[in-house]
């Protein structure tokens, strides 16, 4: 499943199920949030993950980080299965893998100063350095994300959404990670600020050789930043391909529907390509449809699609798709 380059993270058959409900005279139900995904993240690339709310993309990112214990499957980081490690054994990997969260308001502690937020990972992972040196590193990190060094003594409420998101990025960078899961880092931001954060992420990737898993629902921004893109639907990856390949020749009907639904900011293009609608809504992950999970909404669905779950197979070089008809 490798493209060019070496796999940094190998995900195989990863599942994350949650139990919900259950109580007096009520059976527990299982939400199949992530239901068997396999892919590699290549060193130095940005792997974009797109999908609509509830498709399991954030859960997948967090399960890869072992923030949630996986129900099944493995996540190997440079060949070591993280799921099999104890908390103590996991610690060095926590340093190499960081996360940036979607909501820049709830992900920063309002009572901590910016300096202490940014330096917190250092207190955990770099016990060898002193307080003074730590604060100096904090200032350095703020400079890296284009914020004023004097902000170290201020509090999160004094900052705008875009500035807070940069503080979150500085915190993630503190321990010199190799791999960063960006969980919808720009969704809560205004257009002009989104561009600020995306260019910052691009610059940092160039400077530190970072690998990103970039989770988002905005396809046009994912197209801009990603090397390859994975499309998720109901807990599964339905298509994975190089960025240009995916947009030029999408194979899965869901990918095509997603692409046709994006309003492109160009009136001439819009006049030639009116927005097309996909009927119906996403089924509940509590009770996913039999066979191919997309078949109730799929314009191409046939009898085979209601029966068996399609295999996720390589249909062209580096182009994977799970569809009976593709």
């Amino acid at each position, binding site marked *: 499943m490798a493209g060019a380059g070496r796999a940094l993270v190998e995900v195989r058959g990863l599942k994350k199920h949650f139990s919900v409900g259950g109580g007096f005279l009520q059976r527990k139900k299982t939400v199949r949030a992530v239901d068997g995904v396999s892919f590699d993240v290549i060193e130095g690339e940005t792997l974009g993950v797109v999908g609509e709310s509830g498709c399991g993309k954030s859960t997948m990112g967090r399960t890869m980080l072992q923030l949630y214990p996986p129900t099944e499957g493995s996540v190997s980081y440079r060949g070591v299965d993280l799921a099999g490690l104890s908390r103590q054994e996991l610690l060095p990997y926590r340093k190499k893998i960081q996360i940036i969260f979607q909501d820049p308001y709830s992900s920063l502690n309002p009572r901590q100063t910016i300096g202490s937020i940014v330096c917190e990972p250092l207190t955990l992972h770099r016990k060898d350095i002193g307080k003074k040196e730590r604060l100096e590193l904090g200032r350095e990190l703020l400079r890296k994300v284009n914020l004023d060094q004097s902000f170290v003594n201020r509090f999160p409420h004094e900052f705008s959404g875009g500035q807070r998101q940069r503080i979150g990025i500085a915190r993630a960078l503190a321990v010199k990670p190799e791999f960063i899961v960006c969980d919808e880092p720009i969704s809560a931001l205004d257009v002009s600020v989104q561009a600020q954060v995306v260019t910052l992420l691009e610059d940092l990737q160039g400077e530190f050789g970072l690998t990103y898993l970039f989770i988002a629902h905005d396809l046009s921004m994912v197209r801009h930043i990603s090397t390859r893109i994975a499309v998720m639907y109901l807990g599964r990856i339905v298509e994975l391909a190089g960025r240009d390949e995916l947009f030029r020749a999408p194979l899965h009907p869901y990918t095509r529907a997603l692409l046709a639904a994006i309003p492109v*900011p*160009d009136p001439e293009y819009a006049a030639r390509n009116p927005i097309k*609608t996909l009927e119906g809504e996403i089924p509940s992950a509590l009770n996913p449809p039999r066979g191919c999970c997309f078949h109730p909404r799929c314009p191409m669905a046939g009898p085979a699609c209601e029966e068996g779950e399609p295999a996720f197979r390589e249909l062209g070089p580096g182009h994977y798709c799970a569809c009976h008809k593709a």
Partner: protein
Amino acid sequence: MGTMLEVKDLRTRFHTREGVVRAVNGISYTVDEGETLAVVGESGCGKSVGMLSILQLLQGTTGRVEAGEALFRGVDLLKLSDTEIRKLRGRDIGMVFQDPMTSLNPVLSIKRQMTEGLVKHLGVSRREALDRAIRLLRLVGIPKAEELIGEYTFQFSGGMRQRVMIAMALACEPRLLIADEPTTALDVTIQAQIMNLVRELKDQFGMAIVWITHDLGIVANFAQNVQVMYAGYIVEKADVGSLFARTAHPYTIGLLNSLPANGADRRRRLIPIKGAPPNLRALGGGCPFAPRCGRAAERCRAENPALAELERGHQVACWNAGEGL
């Protein structure tokens, strides 16, 4: 085509403890029958407050409309009494807001919420109102409408709730539909469903639409005319074609440069707008965009430019416009 709505020099301020927030600073525009006007801008640019102002929906806030007129088919909405404007809101003017969960009442059934307006505004019987409500729910694509109408909003998904909101807004066949970011909280496939639905209904009922959004993609796909707002001012207005083809205001140009390009040159680097929008409590006398503008000159920092015609139907508020950007 007649004029449906004419807003003249609308000014709204919020009087807060920390100072006076100048949210809307003298905006004027018209919406014709059958027209879709998009109002574009980022958080805090006054696009929503401008709408709430003309509907007299700022009560309970510190916001006050300080000046201006809002003529809806010749009647000044700002001069209407509470009772009079209530008769118009929901009947002649339909409204859809961004968050359907907070705009629908969670403890009343959909049936109750939908029929109440019909009975009150149109004076039809409960039976008739129910039939009509069911028809509307079908129209907006809600399956099994006759069963689901007895349910409560929390039993619906986000997309379904937004459809209920739209059905309610259309219930009395309004002449004007004001939609404030109705699809922002929705997924892109659901957004496409709602956009196509509203377009169909517009063709069917011939209403005028004001669509508030921050998404230039929606503007390009959906509107005929567009106005761009910044810091409570309209900084550029045009028909959609010329706004995109001959973008004139540095802020609008900045917004477009912040977006990934579609097509051939998409590898180009994004060009963010520097800095952040100004504090509306401390707007100076100059152009509000000057502190972030690469072309700002002495005059821009001293004097705020008024909207001026660049070409027919294309207006821009910039001292440097027309000098070949």
